[in-house]
């Protein structure tokens, strides 16, 4: 794999009026990664993805796709990113064939065979008007349009939010099949953590417009431990928040559980019971964590 990352975001911030939708976001994603961007509504997911796609002009910071510094919004920059927005809106009056024609007319590179083959395989008639497609079919057409651009980076904003569970599963399977063959890097957001965990190999957690954690899922799982100890013990030790690397602390009636990012080397809390974490626990802990103070920048190199 080359040294040039698929996506490098540096100090990205976007302010609407007085409110920062996203701030201080620094992120490096390697080529071929499948990235799950998770967080509650309003966490800044859409802002991040739309900034990468060139739809949102950042208030501060830079975005580089494959090391390129093409001016955001320029033809070169737009060609680098295939984008499917929330709800996958299409031009209702266009037939599917006309939508493909639009894609061919408005893009530098266009793989008509790929798009047609994809839609034929799914049984979506080209003469059907977009307004008469089902939600699942709309999502497929939107995806076909994005894939046929042959962009090295594919950005999907809540691609399955409007789909029912069965279609959702099928759709995600197809996304993975489509990107598996080429070295396409995928960035997709969702608030269904379990769905993405199975499919993605990279995780980005956003909350309150801040990046909470980012990294390869394997490594993140390895680096985090769940410590459990008697509540009294914690009280005696002062405060669990004092433990270095602690992400989130949960106090039960008798026990206290702390999710901690441990460094390499011996575990620092021998008195506590240590367990490995699951992806859901990890994400939930970061989402529940208080807004970070960033004494140290979150490590998120990939």
């Amino acid at each position, binding site marked *: 794999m080359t040294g040039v990352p698929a996506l490098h975001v540096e100090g990205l911030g976007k302010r609407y009026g007085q409110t920062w939708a996203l701030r201080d976001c620094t992120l490096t994603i390697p080529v071929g990664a499948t990235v799950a961007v998770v967080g509650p509504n309003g966490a800044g997911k859409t802002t991040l993805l739309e900034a990468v796609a060139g739809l949102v*002009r950042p208030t501060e910071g830079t975005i580089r796709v494959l090391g390129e510094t093409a001016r955001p919004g320029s033809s070169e920059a737009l060609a680098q990113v295939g984008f499917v*927005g929330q709800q996958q*809106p299409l031009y209702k009056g266009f037939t599917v064939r006309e939508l493909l024609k639009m894609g061919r007319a408005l893009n530098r590179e266009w793989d008509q065979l790929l798009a047609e083959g994809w839609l034929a395989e799914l049984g979506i008639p080209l003469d059907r008007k977009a307004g008469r497609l089902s939600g699942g079919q709309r999502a497929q057409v*939107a995806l076909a349009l994005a894939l046929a651009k042959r962009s090295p980076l594919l950005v999907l904003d809540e691609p399955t939010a409007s789909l029912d569970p069965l279609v959702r599963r099928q759709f995600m399977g197809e996304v993975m099949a489509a990107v598996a063959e080429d070295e396409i890097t995928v960035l997709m957001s969702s608030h269904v953590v379990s769905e993405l965990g199975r499919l993605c190999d990279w995780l980005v957690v956003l909350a309150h417009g801040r990046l909470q954690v980012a990294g390869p899922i394997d490594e993140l799982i390895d680096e985090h431990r769940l410590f459990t100890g008697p509540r009294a013990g914690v009280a005696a030790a002062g405060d669990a928040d004092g433990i270095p690397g602690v992400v989130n602390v949960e106090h039960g009636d008798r026990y206290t559980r702390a999710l901690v990012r441990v460094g390499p080397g011996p575990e620092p809390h021998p008195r506590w019971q240590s367990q490995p974490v699951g992806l859901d626990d990890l994400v939930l802990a970061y989402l529940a964590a208080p807004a970070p103070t960033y004494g140290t920048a979150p490590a998120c190199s990939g």
Partner: protein
Amino acid sequence: MLWMTWRQHRAHLLSCLALLAVAALALGYDGYSLHTQYTDDGVGACARHLGEGTPACKAALRDFLDRADVTDQFLDWMMVVPGVVGALLGALLVAPEFEQGTWRMAWTQAVPRTRWLAWKLGFVVVVAAGFSAALAALVGWYRAPLDEIRPDGRFASAGFDLEGVVLPAYTVFAVALGALAGLLLRRTVAAVALAVGVFVVVRLSVETLVRPHYWSPVSRVGDPELAPTGVQAGDWTLAHGWQDLSGRNLSHNAYRAIADGATPDYPGGFAAFLRDHGVVWWQTYQPASRFGAFQLVEAGLYMVLSAGLVAGLFVALRRRTG
């Protein structure tokens, strides 16, 4: 982008053509009868030789002018046509993309959004200008007899606003208003309403406050016999009244004080009475020959306004969602 522009806006072109066809039918039908009445009744000749006109001639002229009043009232309503058509065409450029959420799709293809808008705006401006130029030609033909005999001629509101190059300029201005409002409000209906509102305010302000001053008006003083129907047809009268031999304007009361002294049997009639009492008639006006220049100045004014709006449109496009 050519195909995309055509695909998205061909319906608007066809609607304009349909509207034009309706206007052509209506104006053609009524215009044919108007022109026939004008020539068959000899209205033009009567108007040119009013002094020696026969009673029949005067009656024909009066009938025709009554009809012309109705016609002009109808044409006055057409003033809003360029505003509404232009505002609609402009608002439909960007606002529906926001309403249907398709802007995310439109602006993530490999065409920069400024180029995307330039194509669409260019197409719609050509459609709007072509539509209104054809409409202007149509009204110009229709109103030709009225222009010959009405005191203000082509300078009358229904003539000046609907017959010349100003009509395409108004329409392009309305397109620019609609497009900018559509981008800022992101709602088609609201954008059309705002654009039409601003259009009407600007149009009426320019017509009443600015247009008379494009060129210094001319003044003339004349024999009472001429007043007020002796005005040369086609001149645009800005003001008129009475003055005494020293050139002082007479107030209405001063004039009445003199005029009330007239007796029905005064030798030579009322005009002679005024003449003998040192009263002359005055007028300031824009000569008919300035029509073309006035059209160009006003069209130019609207083109400058439109250019400003379009510049604002592109700045807003880069900034607003950028």
